[in-house]
């Protein structure tokens, strides 16, 4: 389906459209953050600390007088970049492994999928924490950790439909004619398994944002002074009784980003995957 038809259908699917707009705003905020942020996110102004929302500071200031809106805009950059990176890794590695497992079959299929089962056995946050314990804290490692956590999800998701597609006559014919793994998988299988993968990418972005915020909140993810929404929430707790605004807005910002991608994913599922949509 081309872009115009896609957006026409998205427009009619009201829920998905709202999600698309919210997600777009979040991504734009992340991309343009440094340009549109009214203040330097690290600039301290001791005289202006603990302010509520006002004309000069739209979302108020924190315990160092730093502008909350500017910090959230920069925080979005971290969240969105880390989440995008994580989901990208998971899609390429996990999706690739799932496709190869389906293509190879036999012991290699079993080996790959067993390994994925093992990764899937860990509660998400435990695996992410363990990976971060090995790699050390930081935004990049957080993205890597979340990417590893989500890899088995994509492997499973790609393998199932890939098995079906590989059994189709024309794909079997392409294989029989000597098409290599890359050609058969890339040209014939991938386009046919894209729909559920795209939906999962969007939904995973939504949860990756929450996981990134959780890890940074625990002090294991993004490290100060890099602005991060989870860190902002964690740091603001101590001074909440003086001024709750930073806690309120940083949490709202996390919610908004995660909500936007989830709603968008929900709408995408209606559009791209009619079979799944019925079950929602």
């Amino acid at each position, binding site marked *: 389906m081309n872009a115009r038809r896609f957006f026409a259908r998205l427009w009619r699917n009201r829920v998905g459209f709202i999600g698309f707009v919210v997600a777009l705003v979040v991504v734009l905020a992340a991309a343009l953050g440094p340009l549109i942020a009214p203040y330097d996110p690290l600039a301290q102004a001791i005289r202006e600390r603990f302010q509520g929302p006002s004309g000069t500071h739209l979302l108020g200031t924190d315990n160092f007088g730093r502008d909350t809106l500017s910090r959230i805009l920069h925080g979005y950059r971290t969240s969105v970049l880390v989440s995008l990176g994580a989901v990208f890794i998971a899609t390429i590695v996990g999706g690739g492994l799932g496709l190869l497992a389906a293509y190879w079959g036999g012991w290699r299929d079993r080996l790959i999928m067993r390994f994925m*089962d093992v990764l899937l056995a860990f509660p*998400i*946050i*435990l695996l992410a*924490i*363990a990976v971060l*314990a090995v790699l050390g804290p930081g935004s990049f490692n957080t993205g890597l950790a979340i990417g590893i956590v989500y890899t088995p999800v994509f492997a499973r998701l790609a393998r199932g439909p890939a098995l079906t597609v590989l059994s189709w006559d024309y794909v079997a014919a392409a294989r029989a004619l000597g098409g290599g793994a890359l050609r058969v998988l890339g040209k014939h299988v991938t386009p046919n398994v894209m729909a559920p993968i795209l939906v999962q990418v969007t939904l995973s972005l939504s949860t990756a944002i929450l996981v990134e915020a959780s890890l940074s909140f625990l002090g*294991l993810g993004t490290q100060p002074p890099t602005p991060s929404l989870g860190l902002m929430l964690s740091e603001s707790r101590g001074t909440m009784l003086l001024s*709750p605004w930073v*806690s309120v807005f940083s949490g709202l910002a996390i919610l908004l980003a995660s909500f936007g991608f989830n709603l968008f994913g929900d709408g995408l599922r209606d559009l791209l995957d009619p079979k799944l949509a019925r079950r929602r």
Partner: protein
Amino acid sequence: MFQYTVRRLLDLVFVLLGVSILVFLMVRFIPGDAVAIMLGANTDITPERVDALRRQIGLDLPVYEQYWNWLTGALRGDLGTSIWTGTPVGQEILARLPATFEITLLALVLALLLSFPLGVLAARARGTGGDVVVRVIAIVGLTLPSFWVGVLLLYFFSIYLPRWPAIGYVPFGEDPLGNLARVALPTVAVSLPMVAGLTRILRSSLLEVLSSDYVRTARAKGVSERVMLYKHALRNAMIPMITVIGVQLGYLLSGVVVIEQVFAIPGVGRLMVGAINERNYPLLQGVVLVVTGVFVVVNLLVDLAYAWIDPRVEYS
């Protein structure tokens, strides 16, 4: 059913072995010398001390022998000793499990209790203007950062109910009321996303059942809507809810691990974070192994229960 159970048990053994290998190898993936990192900031690091610690953890043996010792030890309940305190890791974990499991379990119960009426209400709103609203609210709930909800709850309670013991933990056996008061807020916070998730699933499966042929037949026979909904539809709609409980428990546990930090609850989450900050790797390995092990077993039980309840499940 018997065959299915046996096969799932074999799967379980395999997965647990894989988990144990990964957890065991964890420390070996740490870039640099893990022992030197563990000793970290201590100024009096002598080569003798490094060697002593290395021997204490068994790092001087060949890798497969280390794994074998570690695994057989773990099976006997011996997970090694904590590096700094010297207390057995198993003991430290056992001391922390009750708080985490209590909150996880209570949150599950609360989510089930709330999602039934909400799911029925949501299914009834089908086709009305409220439909979109219900969907949007459910997704807001689903993506609610529970640690944020916890922070806000803590704030409101400290302002409006300053005498409420909102922070810390006391075992139920010591002070039942104090225990419940302290776990109430974290339980509510972590269960909200699950309430939203279960409500959504119940709604969609209710709608599916209500549009099925046998419900239409029952309607034609003149069965009242009430009986239809509560007797026929709800029972069948419950089945998909059981399947997701396993997955949802994972999210729930993740939520609890994080929220322990908000309410200063001495559970496994705080134990893990502390272990990382202290570079106490034996302890960290123990926590990950034990919690994942419990999680995997519970998931298996949920699956078996599901197969037992729903005769339509294929065991192939």
